[in-house]
């Protein structure tokens, strides 16, 4: 059995989940026989897009990926040949060099230089894919290429793709479970399809928000840490409380934020939030100045600061919960997707930023829309419907 992410690879560009703007840019480069570097996180359909375009346009792909040796010799052999020769079947070619980030300094010695030399006079279009185009070792290549960004696939699209797979695999599914999968992968469509295959092994798709095993283990550790910090007042108990926790300080803060009010009241609540607020200020300073030593203070505030907000140790069982804030923000973004498209379209008519349009103009437009007296703004019917809601 093929993994689904292979089985359902898009065959031509109509089936792609990629942003059409990026696809068109890429097509233009191919047509001009130019050089492009396409970049984006994994699972944003970089390779699939090239393959689909090749399929649709009847190109032959000459590929070299990370599993191939890419020292200067191999590159000259494989690609150098491809760059000059006519194809056996008289087909046009696309040279695809996948995962350019993966060119290794040691094993692939001279690879980048060889490649960059070959790029000087390419007869066929050359497409490179990269997760991060700004790594210094590929500077030379980047400068020769048109950079095209592949953005994370939006979750509505992912849900659509998953739905199609479920239909053809005859899987029982609920929209909700598809949404959970789509949300969890953060724009990585391959990850989403893999998840789907794992969770739908017996023909029924069952996912709950925390069904992932390692997720659970991670959660166990943070729950222990929270217990130490919230219950105890003894210095040695909560020092190093987060040592075994596998989530970073920002996620610890979200956990604390959610659960402080379940344990603390009044003055304790105030002191705990004061510690959290100070830790947050350090967070920003770390990011801004890249001064990571501040992290010491963050962790002290998150352990001692929270623990010593109380005078006496706490008894009794409290069920700690995962922060609901990210989910609420996500849901509201989904709901307000139209708000974004409308403000993108209209804010320039108002000579203002999207942010200020949403705050200052949009509410009034909603009111006018409700009374069917919306000014002419070239909105789509469904956008007008959204305004009326």
């Amino acid at each position, binding site marked *: 059995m093929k993994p689904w992410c292979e089985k359902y690879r898009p065959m031509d560009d109509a089936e792609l989940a990629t942003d059409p703007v990026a696809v068109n840019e890429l097509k233009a480069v191919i047509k001009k026989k130019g050089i492009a570097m396409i970049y984006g996180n994994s699972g944003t359909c970089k390779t699939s897009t090239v393959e689909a375009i090749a399929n649709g346009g009847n190109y032959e792909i000459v590929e070299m990926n990370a599993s191939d040796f890419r020292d200067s010799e191999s590159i000259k052999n494989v690609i150098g040949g491809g760059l000059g020769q006519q194809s056996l079947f008289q087909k046009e070619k696309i040279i695809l060099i996948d995962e350019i980030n993966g060119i290794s300094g040691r094993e692939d010695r001279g690879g980048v230089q060889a490649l960059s030399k070959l790029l000087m006079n390419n007869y066929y279009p050359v497409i490179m894919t990269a997760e991060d185009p700004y790594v210094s070792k590929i500077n030379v290549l980047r400068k020769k290429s048109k950079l095209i960004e592949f953005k994370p696939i939006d979750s509505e699209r992912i849900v659509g793709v998953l739905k199609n797979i479920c239909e053809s695999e005859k899987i029982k599914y609920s929209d909700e479970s598809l949404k959970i999968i789509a949300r969890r992968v953060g724009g990585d469509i391959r990850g989403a399809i893999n998840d789907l295959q794992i969770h739908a092994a017996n023909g029924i798709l069952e996912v709950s928000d925390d069904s992932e095993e390692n997720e659970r283990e991670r959660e166990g550790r943070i729950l222990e840490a929270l217990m130490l910090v919230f219950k105890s007042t003894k210095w040695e108990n909560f020092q190093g409380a987060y040592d075994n926790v596998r989530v970073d300080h920002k996620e610890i*803060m979200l956990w604390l*934020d959610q659960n402080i*009010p379940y344990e603390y*009241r*009044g*003055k304790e*609540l*105030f002191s*705990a*939030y*004061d510690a*959290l*607020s*100070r830790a*947050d*200020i350090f*967070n*920003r*300073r770390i*990011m801004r100045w890249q001064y990571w030593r501040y992290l010491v203070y963050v962790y002290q505030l998150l352990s001692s600061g929270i623990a010593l907000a109380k005078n006496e140790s706490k008894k009794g069982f409290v069920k700690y919960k995962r922060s609901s*804030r990210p989910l*609420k*923000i996500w849901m*509201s973004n989904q709901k*307000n997707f139209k*708000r974004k498209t409308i403000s993108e379209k209209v*804010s*320039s*008519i*108002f*000579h*203002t*930023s*999207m*942010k*200020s349009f*949403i*705050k*200052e*103009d949009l*509410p*009034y437009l909603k*009111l*006018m829309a409700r*009374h069917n*007296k*919306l*000014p*002419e*703004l070239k909105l789509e019917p469904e956008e007008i419907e959204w305004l009326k809601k």
Partner: protein
Amino acid sequence: MKIWTEKYRPSKFGEVFGQRDIVKKVKALAENGNMPHLLFSGPAGIGKTTLALVIAKEMFGENWKGNFLETNASDERGIDVIRNKIKDFARTKSVSTEFPKIIYLDECDSLTREAQQALRRTMETYAGSARFILSCNFSSKLIDPIQSRCAVFRFKPLDKEEITSVIDNIAEKEGLKISNDTKNALFDVCDGDVRRVINTLQSCAVLNKDIGPETIYEVSNFARPKEIDVVIKMALNRDFEKSRNKLLDIMLTNGLSGLDIIKQLQAEIIKLDVEGKTKLEMIKLCGEAEFRLVEGSDEFIQLEALLASFGLLQ
């Protein structure tokens, strides 16, 4: 039907309401043809963008669109805007005019420091072919080298008389009936923000051409929900969880930032029915929270800390 904020946006110096001194000076600079870079600072809705557009229209006439780039720093934050969009525009010569092109950069105070540095260089490099008009709410957020390269104009909120003339002008052209009470109500809900005045008027007009003060308050309540006082009351009653949930709800449904919330909180606290001393304490706490919010990274945690501190007051 057009949107009134655009329909009634002045396009000549003579049509601008308010900011009389500024308009006079800017007009002289524009007519002289040798305009320096300008910096407009002041709160929202008092004519900064309008004046920039007027300058472009008056200087370039019909060709103004080709010689005027409008961009804002809040949607396109960061160094890339400066490096790409602005540079591309600035390095070509202006179309059919001897005046340099104009680049209007709105909400400059949201540019990062690095972007401001880049902007400063760009302003110097292209001084021959382009003039910048920068606009911001607080000029103190701009680095000194930028401020020192601009002629700074501080815009003030329009006074009652000036707002009245805006209202009268629209009422006459749209055939609206507006009593003095209604004007007072409008003045009350709009804080000298003309954009809000005009938006409110147009919304009221879809209901009825004869606009009473109740309609003004109704529209204003719809557009600018007052739920924030509920949040404060819950926090004062030590009902922390409810208050924070409500707060998140308000922020998400209305797309408000932490700073927007602090501003509203502050305005509500002043009107609150509690002792003066408590109010003063709350304002102080607000100030500290705003400071931390600007310095911090997670706005919501800072707001929660503020709500938690309200719980200790009564």
